[in-house]
């Protein structure tokens, strides 16, 4: 009864505090939507790269055509023709285009010549008849790629790799052509075979999951919704600690201390109330991920199939968050101290916990530290459940860590609170 009364009292206090309500329910929604939108582009980098690149084809031969065809097929680069290399350089310099590929005159012919010399050398080496009349040293062919200084390293790498792959492909094709030409010398009835090199070997990329949820992958929504949901849940310390310290400063906490047996009810009631609020936040944010994100042109949040385990994880995160908030509330004596320390500590825990950027892109030292953030335990569990369809056994270690954290913070809170009840 006392606990229920405390929960009801906390409910009344909260609904009459518009700032607190906004902090608990509106700000996290705004935060998760903004962060998902902001981080959408970086998350698409690897999968949906689409660069505007100039092609200055002064060669006007096979290599340019091959580059056009290859990039068109790959779809990662939008090639725009430019005749003048000086203009192209200026446009890239001005940031109008991310890069320019310059094909100097005779580059295809030079590549062909180099190929022919190579085959001739091989034939000669094996004592076969070969045309070795062209034995002048041909310099290494260098395609010029001009890049915008502001271009990200991964863009530059992708473009360079793409061009290298095209050249290798062209070179291999021409080697085979030249080989056939040399072998068929004098045999007029032999037809040349056109090879499709992609038929020889290709990469077949698949997702590791092998059930109906296979194909779910990390994107801005999948990362940001659980990540910022946990951030919001841990930020519960703000209203919790503020409310707790206000009661202490206003004197109502003193009155409660003077009532026999009320302390357990006060702490438990507060804990349960804010635990419920955390769960409401979770449900609300997940609903935003499922129903609102697609309306904003983002992916829909995919939950996987383990709703019971998701709820269990959410409960454990809520307990850990409420326990931490309670500890901050009882430990600090003034609201200013509690709220300043609490806010900064939540930001730090979230940063090292992988909320801002995924843990795998962090330096190794931070990756090691992140193991100690309760937010990383929660986030890892949610990712396991959403994307990897993990079993209970797989998330159990993180569940236990979260429960342990909740138990330690709550026990410490009760001990500190009791020690201050009697001076």
């Amino acid at each position: 009864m006392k606990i229920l009364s405390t929960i009801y009292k906390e409910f009344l206090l909260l609904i009459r505090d518009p700032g607190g309500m906004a902090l608990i329910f509106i700000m996290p929604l705004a935060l998760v939507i903004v962060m998902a939108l902001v981080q959408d582009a970086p998350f698409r980098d690897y999968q949906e790269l689409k660069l505007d690149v100039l092609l200055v084809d002064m060669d006007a031969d096979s290599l340019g055509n091959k580059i056009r065809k290859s990039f068109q097929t790959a779809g990662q680069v939008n090639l725009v023709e430019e005749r003048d290399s000086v203009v192209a350089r200026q446009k890239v310099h001005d940031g109008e285009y991310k890069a320019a590929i310059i094909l100097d005159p005779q580059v295809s012919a030079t590549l062909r010549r180099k190929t022919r010399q190579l085959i001739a050398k091989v034939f000669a080496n094996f004592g076969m008849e070969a045309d070795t009349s062209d034995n002048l040293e041909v310099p290494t062919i260098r395609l010029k790629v001009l890049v915008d200084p502001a271009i990200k390293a991964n863009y530059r790498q992708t473009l360079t790799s793409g061009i290298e792959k095209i050249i290798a492909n062209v070179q291999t094709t021409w080697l085979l052509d030249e080989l056939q030409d040399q072998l068929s010398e004098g045999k007029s009835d032999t037809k040349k075979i056109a090879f499709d090199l992609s038929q020889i070997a290709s990469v077949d990329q698949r997702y590791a999951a092998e059930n109906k949820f296979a194909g779910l992958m990390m994107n801005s929504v999948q990362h940001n919704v659980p990540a910022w949901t946990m951030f919001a849940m841990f930020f519960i310390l703000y209203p919790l600690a503020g409310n707790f310290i206000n009661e202490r400063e206003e004197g109502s906490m003193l009155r409660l201390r003077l009532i026999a047996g009320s302390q357990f009810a006060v702490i438990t009631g507060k804990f349960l109330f804010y635990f419920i609020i955390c769960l409401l936040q979770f449900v609300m944010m997940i609903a935003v991920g499922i129903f609102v994100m697609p309306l904003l042109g983002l992916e829909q949040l995919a939950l996987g199939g383990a709703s019971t385990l998701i709820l269990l994880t959410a409960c454990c995160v809520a307990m850990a968050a409420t326990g931490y908030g309670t500890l901050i509330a009882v430990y600090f004596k003034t609201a200013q101290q509690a709220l300043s320390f609490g806010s900064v500590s939540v930001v730090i825990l979230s940063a090292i916990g992988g909320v801002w950027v995924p843990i795998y892109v962090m330096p190794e030292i931070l990756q090691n530290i992140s193991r100690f953030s309760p937010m990383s335990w929660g986030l890892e569990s949610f990712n396991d459940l959403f994307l990897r369809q993990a079993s209970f056994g797989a998330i159990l270690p993180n569940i236990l860590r979260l429960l342990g954290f909740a138990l330690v913070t709550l026990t410490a809170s009760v001990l500190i609170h009791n020690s201050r009840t009697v001076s």
Partner: protein
Amino acid sequence: MNVVQLEHLSKTYLKTGKPAVSDLSLNIPMGAVFGLLGPNGAGKSTTVMMLCGLTRPDQGTVHVLGIDVRAHANEVRKKIGVAPQEIALFPTLTARENLRYFGSMYGLSGSVLKTRIDQFLDVFGLSEKAGKQVHTFSGGMKRRLNLIAALLHEPDLVILDEPTAGVDVQSRNMILSFLEQLKKKGTSIIYSSHVLEEAERICSHIGVVDEGKLVAAGTLESVMGQHPDCSNLEHLFLKLTGKNIRD
């Protein structure tokens, strides 16, 4: 029987290093309205906190209603009602919601709690404002509500710390009249105040503390009788504690 029995009570806070209460012994008879008087920093609040079990004495014993406070603080707290000097209420809850919450924490519920809340609100002239949030109340209304919250569970001993601080004449009169009624019913009251006319009006017994020590105690008449040169309690108070400002 004594409602309060203090024996050689001492308390020194680590922060100040100065004794807040020093070898204080005092008996308050059952049914008395005891005025605990003293200048600021004299040790009144520390004594009250030790009575409630919120501050542990360094030395000495405290018995309230025959119960050792140190050993059974919760038993004592069930039988006492304390109205602190602060307005110990939730400002954004209504008067009724505050009383309902504190009543439930005292273990009251249902019709018993509702009846008591209605009765007290009526006695203290707050029925019409019962649904208003406390932060909209005047100082006098808050004081009255603060007092009601200490009385809901009908305690055997009521401890009041400056119950009329910052209130208007009408509210003060209402509070004092109510305390006089409680006195007639035989409820024991410890009344800590700086307003000596009030103490003179309602107290049957007084104790004057200064610098942590009890400098006078007994019935109001007996203490005044020991100082025939003092025409009223204020003269007596200044004679016993001096005219120097203490804070």
